[in-house]
């Protein structure tokens, strides 16, 4: 009799475990159809000892009834007659979310990372005087950037800023060190437009002036920043360069975030991406804004937001950013 109990419990457990209407129907066929397992048990009665035949017959009969009831019960649980069928494959109702402009996405990211590193955001005018763009920045009177062929002048002495460094000068003029700011904003050049150059683009410059600020700290700071932007294995490389407003100056290369420095199409097999310029603020610039260059030192850096966005999102034409084609914007 132990056998019977085991068989019965196995079958009922199996029926109870049905996961859908179709599954329950499959179980009915498996046990109760003409060649179903329970039906076939009736045929086994002739192999049973005569004194047990009656008991076996009762067992199979009641098992059949029990199984049928259970299958119907299980099926009823799956089919609610009052429910309307839902076609889950129809398209959902359309919702629209507002998109970030890719340049703002990058700008916001820079603001967040530098913000956490203690940099405040500073802003300033886009139409500037020559003093804030050139003179205060140690840019000699003969420097090519001063020519109308290189910069966009509004009138004599006033032009669209070519760097956001003017914001640094204005910030330092107004206060006393320490200063720790970034100045994201638009800058302008008198430059013919093509896939990699536009007359207007977006810079994010940074400035940190304090006692004991050094070139090595600049390198460390930029490395920390790029690690936050591109991942913890990011490396930073400095190459000597020349800018009138910083000394020593460097161009900043960052190990390619796509290939990790092994060389790929993004970094033109060099393993490095050139991402900005930086240096120690020139003593003359500090003196121009009344900061004692013996007591205070500081660094400045500049990053091109378009360049960061082009690399990050694979944008090949810089003009796409101000074209504002919604098919472009809706990808962000």
């Amino acid at each position, binding site marked *: 009799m132990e056998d019977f109990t085991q068989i019965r419990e196995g079958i009922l457990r199996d029926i109870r475990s049905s996961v859908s209407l179709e599954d329950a129907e499959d179980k009915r066929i498996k046990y109760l159809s003409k060649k179903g397992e329970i039906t076939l048990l009736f045929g086994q009665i002739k192999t049973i000892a005569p004194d047990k035949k009656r008991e076996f017959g009762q067992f199979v009969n009641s098992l059949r009834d029990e199984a049928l009831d259970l299958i119907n019960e299980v099926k009823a649980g799956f089919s609610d007659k009052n429910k309307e069928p839902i076609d889950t494959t129809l398209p959902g*109702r359309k919702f629209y979310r*507002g998109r*970030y402009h890719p340049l703002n996405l990058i700008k916001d990211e820079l603001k967040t990372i530098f913000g956490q*590193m203690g940099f*405040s*955001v500073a802003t300033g005018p*886009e139409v500037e005087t020559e003093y804030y763009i050139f003179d205060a920045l140690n840019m000699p009177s003969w420097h090519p950037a001063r020519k109308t062929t290189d910069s966009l002048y509004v009138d004599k002495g006033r032009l669209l800023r070519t760097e956001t460094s003017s914001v640094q000068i204005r910030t330092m003029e107004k206060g006393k060190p320490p200063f720790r700011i970034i100045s994201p904003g638009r800058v302008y050049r008198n430059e013919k437009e093509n896939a990699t150059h536009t007359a*207007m683009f977006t810079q994010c410059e940074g400035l940190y002036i304090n006692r004991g600020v050094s070139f090595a*700290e600049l390198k460390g700071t930029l490395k920390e920043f790029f690690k936050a932007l591109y991942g913890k294995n990011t490396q930073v490389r400095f190459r*000597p360069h020349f800018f009138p407003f910083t000394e020593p100056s460097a161009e900043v290369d960052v190990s390619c975030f796509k290939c990790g420095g092994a060389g790929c199409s993004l970094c033109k097999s060099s393993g490095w991406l050139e991402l900005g310029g930086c240096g120690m603020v020139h003593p003359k610039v500090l003196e121009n804004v009344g900061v004692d260059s013996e007591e205070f030192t500081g660094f400045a850096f500049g990053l091109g937001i378009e360049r960061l966005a082009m690399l990050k999102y694979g944008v090949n034409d810089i003009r796409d950013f101000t074209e504002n084609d919604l098919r472009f914007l809706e990808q962000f």
Partner: protein
Amino acid sequence: MKISAGWLKKYTDFEINSENIDDIVHKLAILGFECESVEHIKNSFDNFCVGKVTECIKHPNADKLSLCKVDIGAETLSIVCGAPNVAAGQTVPVALVGAKVKDFVIKKTKIRGEESVGMICAEDELGLSDNHDGIMVLDDSYAAGTPLKELFGFEDTVLELEVTANRADALGYIGFAREFAYLTGTELKIPEVSLTESAEKSSDSVKITVLDPAACPRYCGRVIKNVKVQDSPEWLKQYLTSVGLRPINNVVDITNFVMLETGHPLHAFDLDNVAGKEIIVRKALKDEKFITLDGKGFTLNENILMICDSEKAVALAGVMGGLNSGVTQTTTDVLLEVAYFNLADIRETVKLTNLHTDSSKRFERGIDPNDSEYVINRAASLIRELGGGEILAGTVDVYPEKITEKSIKLRLSRTDKVLGFHIDKDTIISSLNSIGLKTEVEDSDTLSFTIPTFRPDITQEIDLIEEAVRLYGYDRIPEITLSTISLAPVVNREEKTADSIRENLRNLGLSETLSKSMVDGKYCTPFERKPVKIGHPLNEEMNHLRNSIVLSLLQTAGKNIRRKNGRIGIFETGKIFFYDNGDIREINSAAVLLTGKRNFQSWNEADSDYDFYDIKGISEEFLSCFGKNELVFSSGKCPSYFDSDASVSVFKNGSLIGYYGTLDTKTLEIFEIGQPVFCFEFDFAGIGHLSGRDEFRISELSKYPRVIKDISVLMDKYDNAERVAEQIRKTCGKLLTDITVVDIYTGDQIGSDKKSYTFRVVFQSNDRMLKDREIEYLLKNIIEGLKNDLKLEIR
């Protein structure tokens, strides 16, 4: 600056090869010379050899062709040649079958019925020069069959290096090699000059007068007589070609060669064309005319430094020579000029003429005034070597005030402070010494260096610190971060406002755009603020600064409509520019634009277009983001680019903070937009001053149920909902918690001059359950008020 590895080897003992090139390129970048390209030049002249023309007769079927028999050692070839100068007895370069000449491969062929196996080549066909004036004739000493590779074959690597604006010295091989020798730990080798001078003196053949010694502190002249001006030898032509210069003749090529070698530009005059055998250095006269050797004419002014003879100007000093005095094939006596000009004066000339030459590029950055003697002697000896002649004794050297070497101090403590790490004193001394800076004084903290005059960029201590760290290696700078406590952040109010506006508008389903600040002036006209013109615009499409953000949004909308982008819901924040009482002002501004489809047809909804009520809804929801403000909306009184019948001004505490509504069709025409456009424009600063969400306090929730009732009111077609709502509010007082319009009916049943609005009113009390009769009383009062006070009918 292009550097040939083959030539660089002559100034240091280091050889660049395929094994070490990558390492060198990397190290040069770290030293401050970024390599923009590496070019391998190779010409092995496969299938070219020397031939002897043994026979040359006229082609029977063509006047201009000749039939030649050419002995190439192993055999004699028949070659048809079209060059007029071909003749029997010549030794010539021959391209054999299989040779590649320019872009085609030589094959055995028939030309006008005569067999031709190979080709006799001109110089350009060998890639030796641009010369195509007939076939090249070689020296007879070459045996027939000699592979051409033995004569002209070469292989070189040319590096294109970026030299920063402060480093004029590195624009010459010697200057660059000084850095390269430091980099590779080799010795700098400066070519020695041995001069054979004749008894006659230069000073007897030419007189030099400098009228403006401030602009021209030094002028050296030297005369070489009876020079044979001819083509340069192959090595010189190849060298100049490999770095991108065109060979001209031996004298001009030598001046270019010595400029590339020393970084000091020099000029050669045909002495016979120097009137009065006199050089006068002076400023140009106002409106003086001059034609440069490339045939361009210029009108000069008093700022332009000129080299003149006793009658006329012969060169724009330091920039370019004139058409009238250059060295040509007929020149016999050469006057060499090696001068030092004031940087600013050269820049004046470049600014006026826009001539950026190899010479001006070097003078503008500042060259060494004190290497003039070496430079002029080096050029003179090379001219004698390659063109014969006699070098007259002595240099005419006008150098009234010698420019001397300066001495600059470097404090080791200061170096540590600026760099943030320590470089050993001996390391600093030996590295600076090896690039030509001599140590003068040395004590525990202060070093003093003599700065050679070829490094005019080093003028103060910080320049020395930079050199010290550059030579130490930028790749060895440690990466330090100091864990000091952050400065308290300074909140930038404008930036915070912009971020808050952007966030809230994005949350309303609108996408950010960013447009150019520069626009075509014609688009500024609908907007009331006086636009700012750009003095020298790039083009007419960018000749003004935008005076409205709506302008930018309309440009964007127009583009997207033309591209069939159907759903346009956008906003922009940014600067606008205008004149205010004669001053240029720039302010932050922001606006929203809706046009086209609100949504597209789908199985569950019909498609529909944006309308006035979308911009109204967005404006209201947006303004509610900035706290509970008492806002007053007033129809009309909007700027003229809004449709006066479908626009609303928004006031807060009596001051205007924005407009929304439908735009005027005339304005849309300017932007070539033919469909309705809806805008919401608001005062950026005004939004910034609205009380923020941070100051907002909740209203308590009532524990008692709400009662909702609908009232349909028959109104005149031109009547408005607010008049009715105001009357209902007045009647009900505090018990009315909400009122809205839930249905509008128009139709024949009520007459074409009428409409019916169904208002839904919600009653609730905070302190009690409203009784049925209270509600009835309120409804009765509402209906009576509408009937009696507003003369309206209730349906």
